[in-house]
């Protein structure tokens, strides 16, 4: 976890708590910051990321909304343009279909449409990911869907340190930020918990800047690129590969927009092999973009065909054996490496 563990204490937080802490700290120093969404008040967020906020800041600044995503996200755009800094929750990213116009045609474009005279400093936080049998309308990642459309930053942390720093950076950003948090990393026991996501988190405020991928493990034989849960799969695969004497480098993209193509390219230049791990759908998404970004810069750095371990192009099935079959995992990454090891 190299550069990011400059922590000043040994306190370990879940991503859920790290997010809530970042929001609270910004709310304390900036009264323009407020939170709205479904069940983010008394309940503290279905995924725990607003716990404690209503108790500290009250119902006027921590507003439970009706189930009206077009209404309250559109309202957040209007409030942000009027000088506020809303932090808004879309409970599951899968629900984007009921409110995407407010997101991609207003929130993301009003700065451009206004020639820069209108700012939309808005954080839209939304949960992603599956693995716990919540079926096809509650388990998607849709990273590519958001990253494809211009005008919004798109970020997703893999651990609590990044989550706090990226949330702080998101709230302070003058631009709209889609903050995607993977349910399986939240540290909510009831969703299962990837232990690697719960890490040391400083109490003081700090920012993790956007557009800077992290090399979370160094290696020489293959570059494994991932995001959020993908990073943990990649790290586990790297452990397995190490046992076979293969040295894998793992890159945590952290942000999709802006995308740190340099870090990915430089890593592949060093290792000569590329595997992209993506829990979003296989085609026309993140995995294709990463591969194309490397190839178009210099295809000769690749010693072997690039590989992707992504979610197949099928809706997410409910039944455990089927869902687990579709999800990326360390073994699939190892198999992907094996298929190009000879080159």
């Amino acid at each position, binding site marked *: 976890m190299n550069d990011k563990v400059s922590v000043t204490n040994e306190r370990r937080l879940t991503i859920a708590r790290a997010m809530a802490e970042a929001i609270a700290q910004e709310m304390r120093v900036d009264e323009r910051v407020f939170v709205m969404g479904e069940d983010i008040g008394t309940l503290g967020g279905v995924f725990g990321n607003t716990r404690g906020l209503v108790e500290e800041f009250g119902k006027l600044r921590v507003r439970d909304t009706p*189930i009206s995503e077009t209404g309250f996200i559109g309202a957040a755009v209007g409030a942000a343009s009027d000088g506020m800094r809303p932090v808004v929750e879309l409970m599951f990213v899968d629900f984007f279909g009921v409110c995407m116009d407010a997101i991609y045609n207003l929130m993301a474009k009003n700065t451009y449409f206004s020639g820069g005279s209108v700012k939309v400093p808005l954080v839209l936080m939304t949960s992603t990911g599956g693995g716990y049998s919540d079926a096809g309308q509650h388990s998607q990642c849709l990273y590519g869907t958001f990253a494809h459309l211009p005008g919004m930053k798109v970020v997703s942390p893999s651990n609590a340190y990044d989550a706090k720093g990226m949330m702080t950076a998101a709230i302070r950003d003058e631009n709209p930020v889609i903050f995607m948090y993977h349910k399986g990393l939240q540290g909510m026991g009831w969703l299962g918990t990837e232990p690697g996501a719960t890490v040391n988190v400083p109490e003081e405020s700090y920012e993790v800047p956007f557009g800077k991928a992290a090399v979370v493990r160094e290696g020489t034989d293959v570059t494994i690129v991932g995001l959020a849960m993908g990073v943990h799969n990649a790290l586990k695969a790297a452990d397995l590969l190490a046992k076979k004497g293969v040295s894998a480098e793992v890159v945590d993209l952290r942000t999709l927009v802006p995308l740190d193509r340099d870090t990915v390219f430089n890593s592949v230049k060093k290792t000569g092999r590329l595997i992209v791990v993506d829990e979003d759908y296989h085609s026309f998404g993140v995995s294709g973009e990463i591969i194309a970004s490397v190839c178009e810069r210099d295809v000769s750095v690749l010693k072997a065909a690039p590989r992707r371990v992504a979610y197949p192009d099928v809706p997410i099935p409910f039944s*455990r054996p089927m869902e687990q079959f579709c999800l990326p995992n360390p073994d699939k990454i190892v198999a992907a490496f094996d298929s190009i090891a000879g080159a």
Partner: protein
Amino acid sequence: MQPNREQRLWMYEHMLVSRYFEETIEKIYLEGKTPAFNMANGPIPGEMHLSNGQEPCAVGVCAHLNAGDIVTSTHRPHHVAIAKGVDLDRMAAEIFGKKTGLSGGRGGHMHIFDPAVNFSCSGIIAQGMAPAVGAALSRKMSNREGVAVAFLGEGAANQGAFHESLNLAAVWELPVVFVIEDNSWGISVPKADATAVPRNDVRAAAYGMPGVYVTDNDPFAIFDAAGEAIARARAGGGPTLIEIETWRLAGHFMGDAEGYRPKGEKDALFAKDPIPRMRERLIAAGDLTAGDDAALAAKARARVDTAIAFARESDYPAAEEALERVFA
């Protein structure tokens, strides 16, 4: 419009099946999820939204429907599915994620589809409504019989799809009935914090359609209101909006600690649990003896047990089946 004895008993029996089904699911859901509650574990993984307390809505409406009529439901679909006559064995198997499930395990509890009785649901709030409108359009355009009923929660009545669906149904005078189950909660948010009016029946006026509010979770009053609306729809008289006061006796979903609920609320609701109330009413009316009741209860339990056994004993799908049925 009052139910006759046969209808009354049909309603009661389906309420019993529904309640036993939920109670059984509830127990099984917890298997493998203790001591640390992790949704992903156990024979029934994933989210689970139980309908305990809301049975009157399902039976009061579906008593007027036949297999050819269309019903769309929500993330909380079991009671409605049961009243609509969905294949219980295959529904249970679907909830367990088995190959014999209605969808071969692809859908799970929020995606119950049984075309044999024209039942479907969706996990996205209010999004089942427009498909009901479209099915009603289909019947009207092709001169085939049938009424469509869209169930939704009171929280869903603030979603844009509600407005568009009601307007479209009214403009095109379609045979569709919208039924709001007002359990007064959208997860942790009370109706009063989410809805600008105390009762959604007043919203019917925005579409020039009749609107009715049924109080007290009363199966017979629901039967009455739904009967009139469905008859009107069948006769070509267009859509109706019905809101029903009902009670969510369970948490929003399994695992919900319900810390947001005011003290005493659930006790008060349990005190008027619609199942014992219905039983007493039927006994008082002479529809039922205690012996009949025991027999009915046993039958309902047996029906559920059979379904659960079928589900338990069925095989899981092969993992690779995940890749099938994306396209017809």
